[in-house]
Each structure stands twice: as structure tokens, then as C-alpha cells.
């Protein structure tokens, strides 16, 4: 339970200095205020129930409505096609998360610790893909590594990687870099620069400064950013859709089960598994990073 900080924030003196009339705290006014607050919340609660909670409950129930019943979740594990899709999605997402963490932490620290002309241009460039849908990212990867892509035109020989697992990896990396970068930079700006100066004065080599000061200070942010990158990659649909890759990722399997095979129960079951995995992961990561932040003061 985070402290919403009534106590921490200095109260504004102008109005609070007035003595309050008794009628305010008692009776009518307080009831009216409570009713008003409930009224403020009501539209959101109705909308969320009607279009989020009940549909998700329906999705879960639908997953048990095939001939298999609830054993459908067991069948996911017994069917090689679903199992391999699940594994491939996890492996690609893990690889993307690792790569994005390394690249974005390096770049983020560099941008926080150096001021130079053109820095803001670099920073803007690195955050541009935040607003790009997955389909656009897929198209950009095709321009880079497709049959008529830049790499294939420049290099001698045949260099087409957009439609393979490499293309998928690069596409996911493309939209993960900005997300991780922003989280890392926000955390890096809060690191006390005197720690690093002290280590330097004591003669610590630069790699020790990274491993002993920067990485421990950044670890909550790295956990949070890694979880976001992993969950986004697990659920990414647009990029895989545009690239039409030769490997099956889970969102594509769900899509084909639903639209081509009309296998509603299996599509629902796979969606439930995918949703649970991403949601639980983000929850764990947040509680981990949250606790570390609290422990660090």
C-alpha cells in the first residue's frame, strides 16, 4: 500500500488557515460528499465490469467448453505444435529482453552521464518507436532485411532475414529498446554522482564502478524494464503478423486457431495461458522492484 503522501506534501496555507465550521464534518455534507465520490466512480466501474471483467470471465469459461473440457489446458502441454510455439515465444522474448537490457542500459547511462551537442536528437530518435504499432515495426524490418531490403542491396550475396526468427528478434528489439531506455534513464538520473566520484578517488577501475555501484543502484529499474520488455514481446502480434515469419509465436497460433480453424475453445485457452503468464510476471517484477526501492530508501 503506497503512501499517497498527504502528510509528506506541505499543505497550502491560504485556505487551510481558515477555521472550519462544525457543519462540515458532521451530517449532511459528509454524506453528500461520499455520495458524490461514489457517483464519480460509478461510470468507470460499470464500464470495467461490462467490457473487461465479464468478457474475461466469459473467455475463461469458453476455454472449457470443448469436448476436452478443462483438460484442454493439459492438451496444450501434450500437443507438440502448441508446446513448441509456447517455448519459441518464451525463448525469443527472453533473448530480446536480454539484448534490450544490455543495449538500453549502455546507451541510457551514456546519455545520462554525457552532455554533448546533438544529445537530444539521439534521445528523440531512441524514443520514436514508442508510438509505432507492431505492424509498422514489422514493415521497417522488411525494409531493412527483406528481399529488397537495404542489407541485401548493400552486401554481396543473399541477405534476407526479415522473415526468419532473426527478423522477429530484430522487430521485437526495435520496440523494446525505447521502453527499457526510458526506465533505465529515469533511474540513472537519481543515482548519487558522489558515489562514483568516491570510487574513482579510491582508485576503482571503471568496470568495478559499473558492477559495484551502477548496476546495484539500477537493479530495480532493470527488473521492471526487463519484465515490461518480456511481457510485451510475449504478446506482440502486429510484428509477427506483418513479417509472416516461418516460426510460430503464440499470438499467431491464437489468431489462426480463432480465425482459420474456428477452434474457439483452444484459442481461448491459449489466450488465458498467455494473459496469465504476462500478468503474473509483471506482478512479480513490480513487487520485486518495489520492495528493493523501498529497501533502498
Amino acid at each position, binding site marked *: 500500500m503506497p503512501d*499517497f*503522501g498527504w502528510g509528506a*506534501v506541505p*499543505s*497550502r496555507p491560504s*485556505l*487551510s488557515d*481558515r477555521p472550519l*465550521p462544525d457543519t462540515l464534518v458532521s451530517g449532511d*455534507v459528509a454524506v*453528500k460528499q461520499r455520495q*458524490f*465520490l461514489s457517483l*464519480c*466512480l460509478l461510470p*468507470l*466501474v460499470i*464500464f*470495467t465490469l461490462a*467490457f*473487461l*471483467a465479464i*468478457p*474475461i470471465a*466469459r*473467455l475463461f469459461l*469458453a476455454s472449457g467448453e470443448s469436448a476436452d473440457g478443462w483438460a484442454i489446458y493439459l492438451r496444450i502441454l501434450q500437443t507438440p505444435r502448441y508446446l513448441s510455439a509456447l517455448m519459441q515465444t518464451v525463448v525469443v522474448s527472453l533473448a530480446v529482453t536480454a539484448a534490450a537490457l544490455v*543495449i538500453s542500459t549502455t*546507451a541510457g547511462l*551514456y*546519455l545520462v552521464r554525457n552532455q554533448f551537442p546533438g544529445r537530444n536528437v539521439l534521445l*528523440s530518435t*531512441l524514443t*520514436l*518507436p*514508442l*508510438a509505432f*504499432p*507492431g*505492424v509498422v515495426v*514489422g*514493415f*521497417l524490418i522488411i*525494409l531493412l532485411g527483406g528481399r529488397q531490403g*537495404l542489407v541485401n542491396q548493400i552486401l554481396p550475396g543473399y541477405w534476407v532475414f526479415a522473415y526468419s526468427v532473426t527478423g522477429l528478434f530484430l522487430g521485437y528489439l*526495435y520496440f523494446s*529498446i525505447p521502453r527499457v531506455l526510458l526506465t533505465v534513464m529515469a533511474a540513472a538520473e537519481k543515482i548519487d554522482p558522489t558515489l562514483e566520484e568516491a570510487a574513482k578517488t579510491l582508485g576503482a577501475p*571503471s568496470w568495478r564502478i559499473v558492477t559495484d555501484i551502477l548496476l546495484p543502484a539500477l537493479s530495480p529499474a532493470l527488473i521492471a524494464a526487463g519484465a515490461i520488455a518480456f511481457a510485451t514481446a510475449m*504478446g506482440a*502480434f*502486429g510484428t509477427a*503478423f*506483418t513479417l509472416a515469419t516461418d516460426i510460430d509465436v503464440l*499470438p499467431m497460433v*491464437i489468431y489462426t486457431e480463432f480465425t482459420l480453424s474456428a477452434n474457439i475453445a483452444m484459442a*481461448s485457452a491459449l489466450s488465458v495461458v*498467455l*494473459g496469465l503468464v504476462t*500478468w503474473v510476471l*509483471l506482478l512479480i517484477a513490480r513487487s520485486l522492484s518495489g520492495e528493493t526501492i523501498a529497501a533502498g530508501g
Partner: protein
Amino acid sequence: MKSLTRSIPMVVTLLACAFLFIPIMQSVLAGLTVNYFRGLSSGLTLKWVGQVWQLYSSSIFLSIWLALACLVVTLILGVPAAYALARNPGRASRILEELISLPLAIPGLAIALALLQLYGSYHGFRTHWSFILIGHVLYTLPFMVRSTLSVLATIDLTTLEEGAASLGAGPLRRFFDIVVPNALPGILAGALTVVTLSIGEFNLTWMLHTPYLKTLPVGLADSYASMRLEVASAYTLVFFVIIVPLLMAMQWASARAQRNMQ
């Protein structure tokens, strides 16, 4: 050797920039060249952009319309709710906040499947633009609520409101005269986020759209699959022209809201 290790971070940063920027440049150039395969020497043209306008202008207008409608709905649902959550920061509020944030954690595809199964058989609703709007609101609402809530949480609302109440202002008057003006930086940042995300939303929209209701990103997917590279690129260029200023305004507003809080 030492200077080599020191330049690694710079090289990584520049390579990452190149990786993100080069394909964007390629796409912009391809959308403006007469023949992409012959290169820039074939000359520059606006022909492809014109073709995109003829083929897809309706998808662009639908996306703008949906984004504005989404903004109105998230304002109506989100701002009063953020106020109520700020006044009652209890366990129930946390659970509700967690619930509305589910669409950020659960892939859009799963949410869309859930909506389709419950409401897909209501034909009039299924084929109406408001069906897509529901998806967009689900996805953007948490941003509006969180952005507003984070500003409200730093303000001593209780004292301000008690002051106004002692002067005879009713709840509605206090909401519009005290809460909304104080939360404005957060509402603005939330509003720009909602519009930016709604215009770029694909995962939900692809499942919820019908052949007569194509949004900008759905049209993009369509052009990538069936149009020549120059047209697809020109369409992407149009998308960039809309989304990049929005993204920059959104980042500016978010930074401003955070500065105000300190």
C-alpha cells in the same frame, strides 16, 4: 585500449540510433521516390502520397474520429474516477486500479477475443464503430486515470476542498473549480497519451474491425500485404506525420506534469 573501452558506450548508442532511424528514413524516402528499386535517381514524387489519400483517407479520418471519441470517453470515465480514487486511497481503490490496468498486462489479442465472444453476436454493435472504440478505451483508460491520479496525489485535496466547502461550494462546484484545475497538467498528459495510443492501436483493432471500418494501422497492415512498396511507404509516411508530433507533445506534457509535482 583504455580509450577503446571508453568509446564502447558511445558506439552502442550510435548503433542503436542507426538501427532505429535508418529504416524510418528508408520508409520516408521510398514513399517519395518515383521508383524505389532504381533509387533516388528516378526522382522525387508526391504521386504515392496522393494515391494513399485516394485509397485510405477514410481510414485516416476514422482513426482521428476514434481517437477523439476515445479521448472524450476516457475523460468522462477517468478524471472523476481518479478524483474518487485520490480521495479514498484504500485497498478497494488499489484493486480497482489494478483491474483497469489489466489491458496493459494482458495482450490485446486476448482482450479482443474476450470482447468478441461476449458481444460478437450482437450484430448491430459488432459492426458499429463504437465496438472498436470500446477496445481503444479499455487500452487507454489506465493511462488517463494514472496520469490524473499521480498529479492529484501530490495535492492536499482535503484542505483545499474543506476550504471551499466552508465557503459554501457543493461537491460538483468543488470538482470543477478545484480538482480539475489542479489536475490539469496530469489530464493534459493523459489526454495526449490517449490520442497517441488510440491512433496507433493495432492488436485489438485488427480483431475488432470489420471490412467497412478500417483504422489507420489496419489500413497499414492491408497496404503492407497488398500494395507496392512505394504506396505502403507513403502510407507509413502519412502515419509518421500524424504520430510523431503527437508523441513529442505527449512527452513534453508528461515531463511538464512531473516537473509540476516536484
